[in-house]
């Protein structure tokens, strides 16, 4: 096993994800790590944030006198509205998602498989109280679903795997994984004879070291 250096910090990772969000996109950022992406979206790119509890044009977290109990994000954190914002009910909000109108959804994950399966709602612990929220709708709804996560657990186990062991959130729904060690395309869109997982970029590890860490054979996205 190779010692890993120069991996991306959470903020660097958020900036890396933000760089790939196209100008003018409608974007949903999941709870947790993906929320950091909003800090790195440059003004003037015309990117509109969707929050599935019923709003487009969500602004930054609210503080002080701006806190309004009627204006929260999907994590129930008070937020602000930007010029041009709109509100809508839950069925419209998820129709917007499910109907493919949201360009990009960025989600956290416990596990992602090379075929793009996502597990991010349940740890599978038998005594846990289950809760799913909008996770399954977000996973399958957007035109592109990206995952943002650390590539290994705290114990060093890979989170990009051949097959998810945890209960699934969605099947073949993730197209790209952004992690502290690498950006990897996943899913069935690979051409004939290609690996399902194709490395786009690595951070502080070589391609071979990455394969060793994950115990997977990886292709290259550009070939």
């Amino acid at each position, binding site marked *: 096993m190779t010692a890993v250096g120069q991996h991306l910090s959470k903020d660097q990772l958020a900036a890396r994800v933000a760089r790939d969000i196209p100008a003018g996109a409608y974007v949903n950022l999941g709870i947790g790590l993906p929320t950091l992406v909003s800090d790195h979206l440059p003004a003037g790119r015309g990117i509109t944030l969707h929050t599935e509890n019923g709003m487009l044009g969500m602004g930054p977290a609210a503080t002080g006198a701006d806190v309004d*109990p009627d204006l929260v994000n999907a994590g129930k954190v008070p937020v602000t509205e930007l010029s041009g914002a709109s509100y809508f*009910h*839950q069925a419209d909000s998820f129709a917007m998602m499910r109907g493919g109108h949201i360009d990009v959804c960025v989600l956290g994950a416990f596990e992602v498989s090379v075929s793009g399966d996502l597990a991010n709602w349940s740890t599978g612990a038998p005594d846990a109280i289950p809760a799913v929220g909008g996770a399954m709708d977000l996973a399958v709804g957007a035109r592109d679903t990206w995952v943002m996560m650390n590539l290994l657990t705290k114990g060093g186990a890979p989170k990009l795997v051949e097959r998810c062991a945890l209960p699934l959130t969605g099947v073949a729904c993730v197209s790209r994984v952004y992690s502290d060690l690498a950006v990897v395309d996943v899913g069935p869109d690979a051409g004939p004879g290609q690996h399902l997982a194709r490395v786009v970029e690595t951070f502080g590890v070589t391609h071979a070291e990455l394969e060793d860490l994950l115990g997977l054979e990886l292709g290259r996205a550009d070939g």
Partner: protein
Amino acid sequence: MTRISETALEALGEIPDGSTVMIGGFGSAGQPVELIDALVEAGPTGLTVVSNNAGNGDLGLAHLVELGRIRKIVCSFPRQADSWHFDAKYRAGEIELELVPQGNLAERIRAAGAGIGAFYTPTGYGTPLAEGKETREIDGKNYVLEYPIHADVALVKAHRADTAGNLVYRKTARNFGPIMAAAARRTVVQVSEVVPAGSIDPEAVVTPGIYVDTVVAVGGSTALRQGTGEATWQEVAG
């Protein structure tokens, strides 16, 4: 015809034991706390509650859970940092949980109000929450068959109502209000203020009065707006 009630308890009306009650809100935003307090006071038990969450902290829905009035809850996200009353009931086996992905919950409620018999949705396909459900491949994509959720009564919080029952909401507190209002056989709405019919721009109405049976103003602004003098706090035509 929409009735305007003087108190939340009067607005609530008769809710028998074992009723299915939809309760609006996403966490605290849009939760009709005064109507839930009235439901606690009215005392029905063995309820099936349909709501996105299973109560936060100690008030409103959480209090209803704590008192053991709910037999079954249908929701998407029961477990939260402050859902201790639900957690205790669930672990004690005293409340049944039907966990539904949030968008499926919304669409099942919408379908009930729209007279749809069932629908195919991609959400949940291949996951534990679709186990045992009918599936179908349509144009190369896999879907799960989901059925509507009906209710005996919906408790909804809106911002403002007119005396015709037309509603407008406030920001993300809208959430489940409009679809629950349509899905239940009887809809009771609490608002910050009731204004005379005609005071809300018809183009701006979010929930038309046809879906609203009873309205009650709660909180600090129970007085009708001054000006037209045409509306009163009496019931409007029954």
